[in-house]
């Protein structure tokens, strides 16, 4: 059981949710998604983003539109379908429940005042 594995498992679960929440705010170009996520300190490779978008699109949650660009060929912008909105709402509910649960649990242990052990962070 190594820490990186657990971390990436955690990240992986919320990745889809994060991407959908970005797209929900309005039609978006994939590299903008990467940038936005990077700003939020959440790294994703474009190489993983594209397959994910295609999968979501094929599932009917997303659709895309060609937008003319002034430098080169038109670009593909993604936007959300009604079905995608429903899907997102469900994910959001689940996320809130989860966040609540995690919050309650972690704050409960804090309340018990377990001696905080300084864990050296050798991850960075």
């Amino acid at each position, binding site marked *: 059981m190594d820490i*990186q594995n657990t971390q*990436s498992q955690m990240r992986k679960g919320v990745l889809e949710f994060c991407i959908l929440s970005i797209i929900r705010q309005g039609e978006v170009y994939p590299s903008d998604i990467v940038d936005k996520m990077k700003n939020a300190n959440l790294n*994703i490779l*474009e*190489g993983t983003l*594209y397959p994910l*978008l295609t999968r979501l699109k094929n599932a009917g949650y997303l659709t895309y539109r060609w937008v003319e660009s002034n430098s080169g*060929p038109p670009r593909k912008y993604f936007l959300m379908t009604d079905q995608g909105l429903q899907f997102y709402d469900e994910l959001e509910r689940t996320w809130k429940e989860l966040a609540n649960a995690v919050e309650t649990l972690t704050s409960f242990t804090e309340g018990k005042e377990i001696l905080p052990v300084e864990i050296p962070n050798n991850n960075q």
Partner: protein
Amino acid sequence: MKKVININFQGRVIPIEETAYEILKRYIESLRQFFANEEGKDEIINDIESRIGELFSERLNKGSACITDDDVQAIINSIGRPEDFEAEEAGTSKTEHESTTRSSARYQPGSKGRLYRDESDKLLGGVCAGLANYFRIDPSIMRILFAVITFGGFGTGFLIYILLWIILPSRSLEMQLRKRLFRNPEDKVIAGVASGLAAYFNMSVWIPRLIFALPLVLGIVSSIFQNVFFHFDPFPSVIFGSFGGSLFIIYIVLWAVIPQAQTATEKLEMRGEKVDLNTIKNTIQEDLGNLKTRTEKWSSEVKETFQNKSHAMAGEVNPAIKRTGSRLGHAIGVIFKGFFLFIAGSIAFALLMAMIVLILVMVGLMAGGVSAFPLKGFIIAGAWQNFLAWSTLLLFLGVPVIAFVVWIIRRLSRAKSRNPYIGYTFGSLWTIGLISAILLAASISSDYKTKAGVEEKMSIYQPSNQKLFLKAAPKSFVRYFDGDWYGIHWGGNGSPFYALTEDSLVLRTVQLRIQKSDDSAFHISEIKFSRGASPELARDAAAKIDFPVNQMDSIVNLPRGFNISKAGKFRNQQVLLLIDVPVGKKIEIDHTIYEYSGFNLDLGDGYNDWDWNDDWRNDYSWNSNVEYIMTNDGLKPTHPEEVKDDNEDNNPDEQSQPETPEKPNDIDSSHYHYKPSGDSQNTGIKKAEVSIPSGNTIKTSVKITDIATAFFERFSL
């Protein structure tokens, strides 16, 4: 100085360095392979390509003249490599930085350098793994190649191996290969062997599938048309009968040996880069390019070390001596290593050869047993025994063969022992085989438990010339398995089986006994023996023996052998022919009788079953084509001097066998050395003369057939 080419990339014209273009091409190819099974893979790759194109034009807009290697590498790093996707998905590996360096090593073959022995993945000395690493192919393929060269080229492969073992330095290498053999779980009919092979050799899946399936289809078709092969049971011959059988076994073995591609990296490795002469050539060229820089570096290095050493020499004489000493020790070590390897290698080689011979023998046993063991139909009775026989053959003999081959190949390919169930399966199958072998042996031996005989007096009329001439009828049987059968000479003189056809077996376990008649007439009686599960069954089987004696005046024609039908089964049937010769009458036996095969008469259990003349055992020996006369003292040749010359035993000549019955030797009384009946007072000298040939025949009558029949006798105990 680099060549720049223009490419049309996603609707943009991009000037790009040729090397950068190669990197880009390889990268996109790796993506294509990674997403090979993804729905909408073309769309994904198209999206990524257009994004790369966009990034390219961004760079060009910033003022770059063209796209360089570094640009491409940077873009690839930002988009990510298949390995990184996997790391992100499965979360199994490293930080982004680590995986990037790892994978960039993968795509820059020039950086891997020299030929080493691979310490981390070795069977013997790691030579094959090192070579495989150098050429970036699967080590198992390299090993199989070496094995082929060794056995095909009279051990040259082995010598090369030893040489490389001594020469090459050892180093722990990271596996760098283009391709590995995997089973493809995503596209399978049975276990994905065929599609894995197809992925490895870059061909359509239907080709290996057809190769595996075709003999099976042909086998089924041919079993419909039956008589194409000579077989007893249609079902097993469909699978095991011919070429298809070996392919079937190969499939099973590959199934067991080749791991399944499970992670994305493995799937990528399964398709891998294209392995062809071109890529290997590229690798070598890149390497040669490196060699130039390396030699330059080397010359300066030599200069340096030389200077250093001369400095050291001045100050430290003692350590220098030590160093030369250690160098001498090193040399001796190398020589010793070579010698040791030579010895160990010879032993290993001998063992390997022995093992291969063992495999061949076992496979031969399998093939011989499975395809058409000609006697099977005559020994095995009933569905139960038939079932036991097949399960003995397949499980008791077949499973170890398959297990052994699997073991060898797993060893060669260094397959990780994934599941112990293979062992359990083999073990339990073999145990079932062992049990059925024991049951079969018990069941068969019970069929041979008791022995019984039936005596039958032949009615013959007394020959007018006071002489009987015995001969065996000319060959009349279709000899299906004439001559050699898997190296065993069935039709030969030593065999109890005269001939074998598809549904009948001709036995020639016939013995002739000549004895003194109680009265003044010739008598012939036939005693037929057989074995069986019970005395009744044995007697029934004995009574079924058809051995007619045909008399034409003085000539008695005996059949060449007797038929056993498949329904009748082989129960070690034997025929004993008792010929009573009255005193003073003559007998001659044709050499064709020598075609009969002797057998041991074990009176132990048969003695009480019937009563016959007690002195039947005191029969007389005889040579063929010699006229004998019965006297009160026994059988005597009429021409004693001929007997010595005419020792037929040594060379029974079948070719000279006459087609038409030869007239018995003249009944001319001038040939007689002894007068009939009355003249029973022989001189002692003449007695001594005849006893010599008699002794000869007794000695030579011990034959292989006696051993064979004795074996069946033992079987029943």
